[in-house]
């Protein structure tokens, strides 16, 4: 229903961010994303994920390089309300006296005049967003009264109401049951099909191939970026996580009695593990042939 004036793109061009205390959180990081993308941002704690988010939101200015949103400088893009942010659950004060509806309405503030008085369209957009995430019946609840998954959906609804085109999600799956996780993924895919761009910081390695078409691996700099099928490999992940990741490999001999040489790798960051079952030797090198054509 909304006409999108801006083709959402994100370009991180060779940025280096150094804090006032002299700590360099990210250096020489570059990657580029197009409209209609869900991109996973993967890295250990302290790898610069939140610094990257803060640079994209204009909280901190890189000392070198630049972030460009839809071809504009960050501050210009923020004025147009195209960036929205879905916070990590632990960053929200759940005792704050606001109703579900109030939080979603905050997404409309950027579209209102300076007194922030909602008009009919704002109210309709809020109702629509709540409907979309299935939270209509909870609209009058204080936010602390919700379950983990419901809490996430409120903030997703807020970015839908905001009509954000570039959406940053910080750990959207922590504290969420499997059913809600799937529902959120479906929602994100839907939003991708509407042409939005989503950058998802997540430790949930196992679900990344299910819904993220792109992946950026981060460890103080961008180690690899591109299509998930190309980037999300055990080798790259090992490089990203170093020794932090739990990595189990069951060799072919442990798994089979026949001469099948495939091995089973389980890689986990203490959330849903990534399970890689080696390719059957009989088949072509890439088991997922449709992805092959894109590459």
């Amino acid at each position, binding site marked *: 229903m909304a006409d999108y004036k801006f083709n959402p793109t994100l370009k991180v061009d060779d940025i280096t961010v150094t804090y006032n205390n002299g700590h360099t959180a990210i250096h020489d990081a570059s990657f580029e994303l197009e409209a209609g993308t869900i991109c996973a941002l993967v890295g250990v704690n302290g790898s610069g994920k939140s610094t990257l988010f803060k640079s994209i939101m204009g909280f901190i200015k890189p000392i070198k390089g630049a972030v460009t949103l839809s071809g504009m400088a960050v501050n210009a893009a923020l004025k147009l309300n195209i960036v929205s942010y879905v916070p990590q659950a632990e960053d929200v004060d759940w005792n704050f006296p*606001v109703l579900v509806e*109030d939080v979603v309405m905050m997404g409309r503030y950027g579209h209102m005049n300076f007194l922030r008085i909602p008009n009919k369209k704002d109210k309709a957009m809020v109702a629509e967003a709540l409907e979309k995430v299935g939270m209509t019946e909870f609209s009058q609840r204080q936010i602390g009264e919700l379950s983990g998954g419901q809490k996430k959906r409120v903030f997703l609804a807020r970015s839908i109401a905001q009509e954000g085109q570039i959406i940053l999600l910080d750990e959207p799956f922590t504290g969420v049951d499997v059913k809600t996780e799937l529902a959120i993924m479906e929602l994100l895919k839907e939003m991708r099909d509407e042409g939005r761009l989503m950058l998802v910081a997540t430790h949930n390695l196992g679900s990344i191939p299910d819904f993220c078409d792109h992946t950026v691996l981060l460890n103080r700099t961008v180690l690899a970026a591109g299509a998930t099928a190309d980037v999300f490999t055990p080798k790259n992940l090992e490089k990203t996580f170093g020794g932090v990741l739990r990595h189990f490999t069951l060799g072919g001999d442990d798994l089979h009695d026949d001469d099948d040489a495939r091995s089973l790798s389980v890689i986990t960051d203490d959330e849903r593990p990534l399970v890689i079952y080696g390719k059957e030797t009989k088949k072509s090198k890439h088991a997922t042939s449709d992805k092959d054509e894109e590459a």
Partner: protein
Amino acid sequence: MEDLLLPFQYDYMNKAIFAATFIGAVCAMLSSYLMLKGWSLIGDALSHSIVPGVAAAYMIGAPYVLGAFFSGLLASAAMGFIKAKSNLREDAIIGLIFTSFFALGLFMVSLSPTSVNVKNIVLGNILGVSDEDIFQMVLIAGISFVVLIFTWKDIMVTFFDENHARTIGINTKFLTILFFTLLSACTIAALQTVGALLVIGLIVTPGATAYLLCDRFGQLMIVSTIIGSVTSFFGAYISFFLDGATGGIIILLQTLVFIIVFFFAPKYGLIAAKRKIKQASELLRNPANGGQ
């Protein structure tokens, strides 16, 4: 009956009651934010550390607002400096600085007991303030009130979710500074009504009380403002009969309201909580009658 209306026959009483009510209302508005952010003690520190400035201003005959502002600034600079140069925790630094400043204030007062009345600064004396001071108070309260009317939603978003506020183009740094400027100004103004020792009450209790009654910030602010203004009104009014205990009466009235709400609030009160537990346990024992 005529006796009860007596205070309103005096011009000075009308002014004092009006000023106290107005500043009480604005402090209550600010308290809605302060208690949510866990910043209540910053208000306490602020009110104590402006005492030497007020004392100095009276000694040299300058406007007390100026003196208060200057010493408040000095105190925050000192806190910032110690924090940057040491690993001491914030509460220790706040405690250290504000007692030092308060002590300095008391010392200055004792040097020159004729020009400054320690009782007025520490305990407040709304019935005895000059017309200029009343004017300053009303001016501060008026400006703060208008600014809050225009910015209350933006400040709320900033304090609730700073990242989001930033992404919708709100200047969060500016609003935070604005908030603390209003807070300092109102603390200084309220010094005249309730005194340095009790200002903290005005900027914490109404908001804390309203928090137990409301689930929405806008409502909370309105309820808090009503509590703040009504208690300040009656505090100033009653002190006409009791002579000079305005601050104590206002804060006691606020405490009384808080206690009532604490027990009887419909959703978050102690009695409501007990009732809910009882209902839940009955439901467990006897699911047939209680089910939906």
